[in-house]
C-alpha cells in the first residue's frame, strides 16, 4: 500500500472518533448544569422503575441494633425546634376527604408497628434502628386520601420540607414514627412525629412533622432536593 493512501486511511479512522469530543459538553459551564440534571433525572426515573411496592426491606434482630446513643442526629439547622407538645397537631390538607388537625393520640390510635430497619444516610454511613409508629398507609386511609393522588408532602417545625411518592408512602414499612427504641421520640430525633421510610435515603425521612398534604402534582420537592440532591432516592 502506498504511504499516502495509508495516511488517509488512518486519518479517516481517527475522524470516526470525533463523537467522543461531545463529552466535552460537560466542561462547558452553561451546559454542565442541564446535562447533570438530565443524568440525575434519568437515575430517578430508573429508581422509580426499580421500586417494588411489595418488596420488603430486610429487618434485623434486636442484637443487630445500633445502640440508641450511637444513633446519629442529623439536622439541617437546629436539632430542637422547640415544639410545644401540648398544642402540637398534624395539619392535614390537599386531596383528602377529612382535612384538619390531627392529634398525636389520634395517630397512636391506629395499629402500631415496630421494626428494626437500616437507616442509610446520603453521606455514606448507615445504622440499624428500632422504629415504632403507625403505617403511613393506614393514616392515608384514615384521612381519606384520594387513591389517584401521586404525592405526600410534609412540612416540619424547623422549616424543613419533603415529598414522598405515593407508592413509597403506601409501602407496608413506611411509618409515621412516634417511637424509637420503644420510647417516645426524643426532641433531637424529631419529636413528636417523624417519617421512618426504610426504602428511602435518610434525608427523605423528615423529623418534627407539622403538616401533611396529599397532592396530584409535586408542588414542593424537598429541602435537599432543591440544593441538588436526587428527588426520588429510593434504596
Amino acid at each position, binding site marked *: 500500500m502506498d504511504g*499516502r493512501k495509508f495516511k488517509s486511511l*488512518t486519518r479517516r479512522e481517527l475522524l470516526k472518533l470525533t463523537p467522543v469530543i461531545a463529552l466535552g459538553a460537560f466542561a462547558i459551564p452553561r451546559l454542565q448544569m442541564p446535562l447533570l440534571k438530565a*443524568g440525575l433525572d434519568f437515575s430517578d426515573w430508573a429508581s422509580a422503575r426499580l421500586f417494588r411496592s411489595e418488596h420488603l426491606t430486610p429487618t434485623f434482630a434486636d442484637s443487630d441494633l445500633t445502640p440508641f446513643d450511637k444513633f446519629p442526629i442529623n439536622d439541617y439547622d437546629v436539632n430542637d425546634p422547640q415544639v410545644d407538645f401540648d398544642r402540637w397537631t398534624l395539619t392535614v390538607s390537599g386531596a383528602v376527604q377529612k382535612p384538619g388537625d390531627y392529634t398525636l393520640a389520634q395517630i397512636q390510635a391506629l395499629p402500631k408497628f415496630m421494626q428494626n430497619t437500616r437507616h442509610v444516610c446520603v453521606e455514606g454511613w448507615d445504622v440499624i434502628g428500632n422504629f415504632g409508629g403507625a403505617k403511613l398507609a393506614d393514616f392515608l386511609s384514615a384521612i381519606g386520601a384520594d387513591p389517584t393522588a401521586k404525592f405526600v408532602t410534609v412540612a416540619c417545625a424547623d422549616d424543613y420540607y419533603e415529598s414522598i411518592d405515593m407508592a413509597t408512602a403506601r409501602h407496608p414499612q413506611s411509618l409515621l414514627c412516634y417511637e424509637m427504641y420503644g420510647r417516645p421520640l426524643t426532641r433531637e430525633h424529631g419529636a413528636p412525629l417523624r417519617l421512618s421510610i426504610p426504602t428511602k435515603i435518610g434525608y427523605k425521612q423528615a423529623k418534627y412533622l407539622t403538616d401533611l398534604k396529599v397532592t396530584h402534582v409535586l408542588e414542593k420537592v424537598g429541602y435537599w432536593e432543591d440544593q441538588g440532591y436526587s428527588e426520588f432516592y429510593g434504596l
Partner: protein
Amino acid sequence: MATRAVVIEDAKTGELRQAVYEHPFLVRFCHWVNAVALFVLVGSGLQIFRAFPSFGAKIPQKDLIDWPKWLAIGGWLGGALQWHLTFMWIYIATGLVYVGYQIFSGNYKQVLFVPRDVPDVWPMVRHYFFFGPKPPAREAYNSLQKHAYTSAIVLGALSVLTGLAIWKPVQFSWLAWMMGGFHWARLWHFLIMWATLAFVFGHLAMVVLHGWDNFVSMLTGWKKNPEYPAE
C-alpha cells in the same frame, strides 16, 4: 487470528513497513468514552467519600484519610452525586457495548485471558519486573496484557455490582447480602476503585514505555511496525 495487515511503501524512500489493524472502531470508541467516564467516576466518588471518609461507625467517627478536595470532582456531596449518577450510565453503556462487540465479533480471542495463557505468565513477569529475557511475541497481546485487560473488565463489572448494592440496597437486597450487607458493599466498591486505579497506572506506564506507534493504534486502529509477525 484474522488480523488485517498491510505493507506500506514510503513514496520517497521506497522503504517497506508493516501495519496491522489491531483495534476495531467500537473498541477504540468505547475505550475513550470509558476512560473519560472512569476519570469522572473516580473523581466524584472520592468527593462522595469525603462526606464520610470512614468505613466504621458514625459515632464515634474515625476518619480513614482526609482526602484533598482538589483531587475530587463535584465540589460538594450533592454535586459529586450528580456527576456519579450521570457518568455511571455512560460507564455501564460503554462496558456493555464493548463486551457485546467483543463476543459477537470474536475479537475477544485476542484479549481474553484463558488457562492456555497461564504458562506464559511467569516468563513475562520475569521480563517486566526482574529484567529477564523478553519472550517472543506471537500475537497482539502477551499473557500479562491479556490478564490485565481481562481483569479490567472483571473489575468494571464488580464496580457496577457493588455500586448497585450501595445505590439500591433494598431493591437489590440479595446483592448487598452477598457482599456482606450495605456497609461492606461500600468498602468493596472503594477497594475495587483502587484495584481499577492500579490497572490504570500500570496501563499508562506501559503506554509510555511502548512508544508512539502503539499509542496511535488506539486512535486510528492501525499499528505500524508490530512486534509480532502479522498474517
